[in-house]
């Protein structure tokens, strides 16, 4: 076969009748679809969904930080505030974009991994440039409450993010879980940067950033389980139908 012949064969493959079995499948699908045909309102555009996710982050991070007491905000000087908060907002926008892309099929290249890498690279870079102090005195007793509080804020964020994600049609829950976990973790981190007055670099790098790492890992694991449960239940349904 020559390359031209190969192209002709590909051309032959693009057209052609359906097999009788396939025609039957199409007929059944068409009948089911036409019986359940109702107008639907298209999902808002990606940038609106991104803003929705980012708004969730901002509202919960600032709200819970203010509710618990903005001691961290007052402990930071002007330069530190100008570096930390815009960095967090930029990272949250990347995570929000990753979430919104998961809501529709063919929504764009996955960005969950990129968001996680950016968080794990940018935030430590900014925090280590601004803060000093690597003392391990009172390290664990001082860190556990921060990790716990961060995760407690990440949890309602994750519930809200999942609720928004379910308005769309998620194909890959592992990737969606990762993106949602990062955004939820960033909300916890944002709250800690407003609330926690401990400016020791090692405390921020481990206990504050740990909220994002933990939340991302948990989100990915939960998404993976949802995927498995989903295709198992579909398998059961199709076996039952057969």
């Amino acid at each position: 076969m020559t390359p031209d012949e190969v192209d002709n064969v590909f051309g032959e493959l693009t057209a052609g009748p359906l097999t009788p079995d396939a025609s039957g499948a199409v007929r059944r699908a068409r009948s089911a679809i036409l019986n359940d045909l109702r107008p639907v309102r298209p999902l808002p555009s990606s940038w609106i969904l991104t803003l929705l996710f980012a708004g969730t982050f901002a509202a919960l991070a600032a709200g819970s930080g203010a509710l618990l007491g903005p001691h961290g905000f007052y402990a930071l000087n002007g330069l530190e505030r100008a570096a930390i908060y815009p960095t967090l907002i930029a990272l949250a926008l990347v995570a929000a974009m990753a979430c919104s892309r998961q809501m529709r099929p063919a929504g764009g290249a996955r960005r969950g991994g990129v968001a996680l890498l950016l968080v794990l690279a940018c935030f430590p870079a900014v925090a280590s440039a601004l803060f000093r102090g690597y003392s391990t005195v009172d390290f664990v007793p001082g860190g556990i409450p921060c990790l716990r509080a961060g995760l407690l804020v990440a949890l309602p964020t994750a519930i809200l993010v999942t609720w928004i994600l379910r308005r769309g049609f998620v194909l890959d829950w592992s990737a969606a879980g990762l993106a949602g976990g990062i955004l939820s973790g960033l909300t916890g981190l944002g709250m800690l940067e407003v609330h926690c007055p401990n400016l020791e670099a090692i405390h921020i790098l481990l206990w504050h950033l740990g909220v994002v790492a933990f939340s991302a890992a948990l989100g990915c694991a939960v998404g993976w389980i949802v995927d498995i449960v989903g295709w198992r239940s579909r398998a059961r349904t199709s076996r039952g139908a057969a």
Partner: protein
Amino acid sequence: MPVSSAPDAGLETLMSGYQQADDEAATALIEKVSPMLLRFFWLQAFSRRHADDLLQETWMRIHKARHTYRPGEPVLPWIFAIARYTGLDSYRKTRRIEFRETQVEVLPEIAAAPPVSQDVAEIDAMLGALPESQREVLVMLKVSGMTMEEVARATSSSIGSVKQKAHRAYRTLRSALMGGARAR
């Protein structure tokens, strides 16, 4: 007759009509896209055996997800992204069944192959030598007639990655063709 169901209406127009519950548009869309989807499943090794069932399952998922299509955007990447995951789910299901159950009867390899010529069978054998990801990209580009950008959207990857996979697939096919010519 609604505008969206005119015989020469594009897939995007038909999809918008389908979202607005226009049954003629939905029917026309199903008629136009089903052969492409069937070829897509049939040319993937992991989904070939159940191509007809997958076609039906894909339409059910498309119906559930129809609100996520943005009017005006290319419809094929959106449809093929759903088809891709339907195939992957089927692959996982088959693997699970094969892992747990012992087959006592020999089943036919292909449940329902579309009518094909000898050349198509030859091409299919060549495609069989390609890794699944390269074959998937090649089928979308050459059989479904999608652009590089559309394939990138359907596979949630970058255009660069699609170009690389297509290039490797062409290179493998070319060497298979040259090998075949030398053998003759």
